[in-house]
């Protein structure tokens, strides 16, 4: 449709998701498969921050949201903006930083210890600071590491997306919390200022959930399409595609499917 005259037809499904999900390229394999299974629907992905994605759902401007911030998602459902939350997949965060590793994150037993070392040594850390899923995960790690509110010249908040924040960390040789998908897709375009120092800690678990927007609050919403999309993501077919994605390009899957069957 380039020639489409305007107006969203009832067959369109608007997905509000995060930039990291879209930029990872996952949708490029998911959508054709979904549209093949449901030829009546066409999916449009609006990639924004998790905060904005939920807001779009709240304002009825998305039919379904796919984000990664479990607590905010729960609240979204409790507030009756969404019908039900379903876990779809997870990937993990990694802690990246300069090879010199002044805080010794490399040798830390777990992520929260690495964070508290960074704070103690006042080593440069770049935070997204944008209330995204990643930012919320980061804040939890600070608390767990005994740092209530990180502040000082060493702690810089960008208010930007994952890609931008990672690039800033790369340029400034600072520590950063980054999701694996973004890291893998961007690492070749960085200047080599940061490497992965710590991964595999259960605290670095990054859960994604899908929530159809509540048609009772938003009558204009494409409820059937949203439900179909959410169901399909959780279906063996959807889960399979998610599990495959990235094997070819990066030698490992970017996301691990974990929908309850």
């Amino acid at each position, binding site marked *: 449709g380039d020639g*489409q005259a305007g107006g969203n037809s009832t067959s369109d499904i608007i997905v509000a998701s995060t930039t990291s999900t879209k930029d990872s390229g996952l949708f490029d394999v998911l959508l054709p498969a979904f549209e093949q299974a449901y030829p009546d629907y066409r999916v449009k992905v609006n990639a924004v921050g998790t905060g904005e994605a939920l807001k779009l759902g709240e304002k009825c401007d998305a039919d379904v949201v796919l984000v990664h911030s479990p607590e905010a998602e729960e609240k979204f459902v409790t507030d009756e903006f969404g019908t039900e939350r379903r876990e779809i997949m997870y990937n993990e965060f990694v802690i990246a930083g300069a090879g010199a590793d002044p805080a010794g994150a490399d040798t830390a037993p777990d992520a929260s210890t690495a964070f508290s070392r960074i704070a103690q040594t006042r080593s440069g850390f770049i935070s997204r600071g944008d209330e995204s899923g990643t930012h919320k995960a980061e804040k939890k790690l600070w608390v767990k590491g005994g740092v209530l509110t990180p502040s000082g010249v060493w702690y810089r908040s960008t208010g930007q997306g994952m890609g*931008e924040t990672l690039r800033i960390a790369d340029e400034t040789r600072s520590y950063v919390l980054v999701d694996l998908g973004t890291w893998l897709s961007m690492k070749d375009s960085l200047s080599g200022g940061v490497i992965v120092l710590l991964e595999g800690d259960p605290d670095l678990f990054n859960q994604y959930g899908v929530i159809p927007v509540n048609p009772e609050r938003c009558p204009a919403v494409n409820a059937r399409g949203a439900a179909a999309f959410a169901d399909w993501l959780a279906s063996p077919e959807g889960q399979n595609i998610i599990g495959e994605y990235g094997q070819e390009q990066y030698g490992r899957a970017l996301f691990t499917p974990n929908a309850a069957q």
Partner: protein
Amino acid sequence: MFLDSIRQALGLLASAEVWSIILRSVEVSGTAVAVAAVIGIPLGVLIGLARFPGRGAVVAVINTGMALPPVVVGLIVFMILSRSGPLGSLQLLYTKQAMVLAQLVLAVPLVLGITVSGIGGIPREVLMQAKSLGAGRLQLALAALNEAKLTLVLAIIAGMGRIIAEVGAVMMVGGNFKGETQVMTTTILEEVRKGEYALGLALGIILLTIALAANAVMSRIQGGVMTR
């Protein structure tokens, strides 16, 4: 590096998808600037010629409009077109029409401001001359337009320049949907975000080439007024 990008840009031109993105950019911004000209030029002539109390304030407001931040414009248009907004029932959000609307809001103050200033610069004698030969109100405005041709070309070029290069508004109300509302700037932003700098640069170069071509055509149409 830059040479590489240019080579890559040329390579990209072979892809149908890139062409459709370019065409969409031109279509959206071209429509917006055309509508902005149709609104802004007559209104600008009117304000430029009229003398009324508070005119200075109106001019100041117009000039201020040149500083409208695209994201804020995008946000406002978004709120209006949102399903929960006043015009939600029109279902225009995330369509090309929405993008045209947002860019229109950005282009109109620029076209208006440049037109008002151009018309204001016409010596009083010229308008008196037209009046003395029997020009009515509308005809006076046309005479003024004719005198300020050079300015009007500039107004349109500057307006087009502002919006075709703009990304904040168009991203917010268009959604950057692949194959539907993706334009050059939103694609550039996405590519750069992914770390595809070369691709971003290449698209930037294509955008500028198009602007240059449009600009050349426009000068030619105006009978070389820009080169006098």
